[in-house]
């Protein structure tokens, strides 16, 4: 089954369908949620940023894995 949800430009997967955009928006919303959650528990700005960047990279990794398997390919 071909899922043409994303198109790759360099190392970034851009959505090319409604489902792709929904996934991108969900990833962004989850990133904002983790930032607010981490910020409420951390003791300093650097503490927040260090933990948040870890989470942001993990969210980016999961998003990229989804994009990798649902990429639009020209046969």
């Amino acid at each position, binding site marked *: 089954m071909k899922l043409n949800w994303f198109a*790759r430009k*360099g*190392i970034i*997967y851009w959505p090319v369908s409604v489902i792709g955009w929904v996934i991108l928006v969900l990833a962004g919303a989850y990133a904002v949620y*983790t930032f607010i959650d981490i910020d409420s528990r951390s003791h300093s700005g650097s503490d927040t940023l*260090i*933990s948040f*960047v*870890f*989470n942001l*990279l*993990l969210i*980016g*990794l999961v998003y*990229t*894995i989804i994009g*990798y398997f649902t*990429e639009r390919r020209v046969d």
Partner: protein
Amino acid sequence: MKDKDEFLKQMENLQVPDINPHDHPQLVKMAIMNAGRSAALGVWLIMVPCYFLFCVFMYYYFHANISWFEAMFRLVVSLDNNKYIDFLAPIILIVLPIIAIIINALAITHVGYQRLGPDHGKVSEFIITVKIKPLNILLILISLVIIGLFIGFAMTESISIKN
């Protein structure tokens, strides 16, 4: 009759392509995975461990009386305190670079098996070809360095705990 003679004359004057018999055995060496896609995913796979190592470096750099090992140890402990990534630490730091190595290696290598001609008896060749794709090779090397660092850290930690 005249047409037939002309046709025969044309056939006799046809240019025959010059074939070099040594070029004939060449084959298309297809890799298992696409190099561009593997490089894109590989970059994301090693980004997290690279960021961790960057944090270790910064911690080491800004704390004068601390060793590299201690800096790494403290950051691993701080990872355990983060509820989102505590159980992910070994996966992030070891498994992701291994996956990056595998997908990039599959994208640049071609493995073939070939029987040699009758002059060589029953001898066969196992041929491994590596395509020179700088980004894929760089990602493999960075992943190997990351894995080496974490294995070294784990061994040092194990030895120091025993002592």
